């Protein structure tokens, strides 16, 4: 199990980046002594504010100020990058693994490997790999995002359905569900990182590294297989029009009009928080497989407490980042409030991860995710301009899910635009 975890997020890119960076890791040092012990932390996860309070209580010598920002893709990352550009960035920020390499590529992160030295073994190797580029360490991994199938058990039971083992079974269920009520759909459209999770499971990649060039695989055969599958559901009119995280989506999850969500562990928190009237209706099952008996899982999300460029009290920054990821009490609350799944090894046996969740009909849902975490398909790589890539992808995916254009074309478009932008910025692209 440990070996496969190692492979989970440890990617070809990271290895290659390690080589690329081996010679040129920065030699910042003296400022690490950290005269100032006041620092600011930008994040958005529910529960972070209380964790910071607890930290300040237990660490009288460091004062962390927490400021809630918009979730990354909704503006938080932009705010951070702007602040770095302007030279007034906070010391610490919540940054998703998918965006970390983009941040690094924009020179927005600060290396804290000196402070982090010796703490590596506290984290799952895969999670550690995702905050590390070469010799540089850019923060502490907080959580990972193994995926599963959230399904409305009430709807499923009423139609005599069982959670699907395979995607083809899922497709049959989609038809039955829609046939039972024209307002009822099996799922809603997936965009950017949620969509990436679907490709990830299949073993498709979006990016790769070949020598010192980027490979952009968005439209590869494996990616097209995933696109073709969902295109089939779209064409048959089996996908709801409600965009994820929109009011209409929450309403659909609550009233049974959207019967499943293929999502990461943290989406348990999103569903619980946003769909109060669905309490007791929902349950979690393993992700459907392409072939019966296989065990492949995607990953969506997971984030780090990253140290941003310009942070002066790096010692204090690391102390906090490490504490947030490893403190049992604080993390226990984060599991409860934000459904985070720990990146720290010692936290995998937290009592909060064993509990039966009344929202999910008393199911111990983390059992499902614990198994999923071990089965996440290895080899996934994020690109250096993910914000651009996902923006272009979402523009085209949005249309495709609405029946204008196809998912496959969306992948091709996003690939073309990404390659053009990479070349435009001078990055090497392997054809």
């Amino acid at each position: 199990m440990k070996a496969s975890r190692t492979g989970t997020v440890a990617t070809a890119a990271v290895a290659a980046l390690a080589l690329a960076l081996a010679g040129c890791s920065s030699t910042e040092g003296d400022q690490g002594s950290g005269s100032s012990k006041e620092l600011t932390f930008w994040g958005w996860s529910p529960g972070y504010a209380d964790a910071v309070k607890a930290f300040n209580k237990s660490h009288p010598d460091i004062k962390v100020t927490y400021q809630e920002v918009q979730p990354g893709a909704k503006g938080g990352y932009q705010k951070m990058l702007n602040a770095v550009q302007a030279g007034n960035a906070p010391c610490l920020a919540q940054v998703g693994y998918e965006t970390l390499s983009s941040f690094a590529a924009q020179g927005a992160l600060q290396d804290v490997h000196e402070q982090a030295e010796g703490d590596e073994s506290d984290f799952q190797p895969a999670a550690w790999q995702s905050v590390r580029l070469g010799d540089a360490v850019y923060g502490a991994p907080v959580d990972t995002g193994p995926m599963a199938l959230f399904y409305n058990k009430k709807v499923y039971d009423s139609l005599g359905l069982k959670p699907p083992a395979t995607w083809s079974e899922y497709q049959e269920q989609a038809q039955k569900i829609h046939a039972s009520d024209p307002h009822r759909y099996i799922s809603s459209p997936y965009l950017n990182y949620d969509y990436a999770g679907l490709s990830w499971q299949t073993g498709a990649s979006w990016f790769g590294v070949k020598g010192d060039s980027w490979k952009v695989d968005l439209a590869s055969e494996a990616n097209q297989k995933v696109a073709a599958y969902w295109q089939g559901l779209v064409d048959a009119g089996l996908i709801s029009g409600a965009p994820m995280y929109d009011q209409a989506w929450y309403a659909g999850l609550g009233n049974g009009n959207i019967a499943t969500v293929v999502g990461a562990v943290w989406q348990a928190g999103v569903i619980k928080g946003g769909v109060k009237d669905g309490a007791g209706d929902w349950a979690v099952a393993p992700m459907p497989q392409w072939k019966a008996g296989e065990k492949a899982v995607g990953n969506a999300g997971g984030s780090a407490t990253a140290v941003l460029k310009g942070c002066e009290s790096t010692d204090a920054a690391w102390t906090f980042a490490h504490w947030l990821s490893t403190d049992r009490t604080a993390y226990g609350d984060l599991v409860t409030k934000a459904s985070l799944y720990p990146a720290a090894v010692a936290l995998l046996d937290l009592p909060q991860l064993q509990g039966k969740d009344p929202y999910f009909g008393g199911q111990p849902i983390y059992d499902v995710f614990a198994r999923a975490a071990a089965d996440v398909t290895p080899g996934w790589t994020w690109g250096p301009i993910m914000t651009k890539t996902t923006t272009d992808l979402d523009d085209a995916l949005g249309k495709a899910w609405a029946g204008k254009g196809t998912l496959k074309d969306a992948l091709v478009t996003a690939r073309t635009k990404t390659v053009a932008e990479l070349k435009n910025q001078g990055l090497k692209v392997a054809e």
Partner: protein
Amino acid sequence: MRPTGTAEQTAAAPKHAVLPGGRRGRETALGRRTLLLFGGPFAVLFAAMYIAPLLYATVSSLFVVKRSGLGLAPPTRRFEPLHNFAQAFGDHDFLAGLARVGLFAVVQVPLMLGLALGLALLLDSRSARAKGFFRLGAFLPYAIPGVSAALVWSFMYSSESSPINHLLEPLGVHIPFFANGAVLWSVANIVTWSWTGYNMIIIYSALQTIPAEVLEAAKMDGASALRIAWNIKIPAVRSSLVLTTVFSIIGSAQLFNEPAVLQPISSGAISSTFTPIMSAQAAVAAGNYPYAAAQSVVLAVAVGVLSFVFFKLTSRGENA
């Protein structure tokens, strides 16, 4: 935005226009100090808040961010003054955004101002009742922040929740707010709703400055209400109309809030480059600040030229 200042001045102008001539002499003595006192802070703020960012954007648009290999080393900036502009004029999405906003302005601005003028004339008419109430009522949408207004409208438009389509359902009518051809006008509807009252107030203020004798005389001569409106009132509010038109052109160019809020629920009909400002925003999100700056400069120049041409055209008519 300089013209905003002129708006208030225009509305307030008549009050200060007639100064007793005798006091002029004393005022020149105080003039220089007063100028420093009031003009100084303005000049400083104007330079810091308006000129400096403008210069900064223009200068940074002349540079190109260059990275190499995998791009993990910090990017370098290279002076290539034409690169970003060449990219902008070859960027299909950006040009489409410009054209879209152009079309938007050509249709929405006359429509909104016609509506505002009509409302102002109605409110100004002799027989209008409860003027204060209607004036406030028409102005209220302007008081609602653009983003909130767009959020409310996004609920009205949403294919899942739209109460409008829900009400129309029994009639067999379904308005496709986010169909490719309709989405721009769904946005225009929100903008019109938000800004008509604002423009109406400016025009209405101008109507108040028409001397009562003039209107009285016209009436005595037997002019109908329509004729008074056409021959006296509308020419009298001409400068206000020019002004509100220029504001509206600038406002159209800056179209952002409404489409950005509607984007997530638009089923892809509103892309991240729907308007030029959104396009620049997307470039910033991609980490390409200089390109965003170049797009902004292109937009600013286009708006500047348009406003200038419009002013020229309308003032030529005035002289004739």
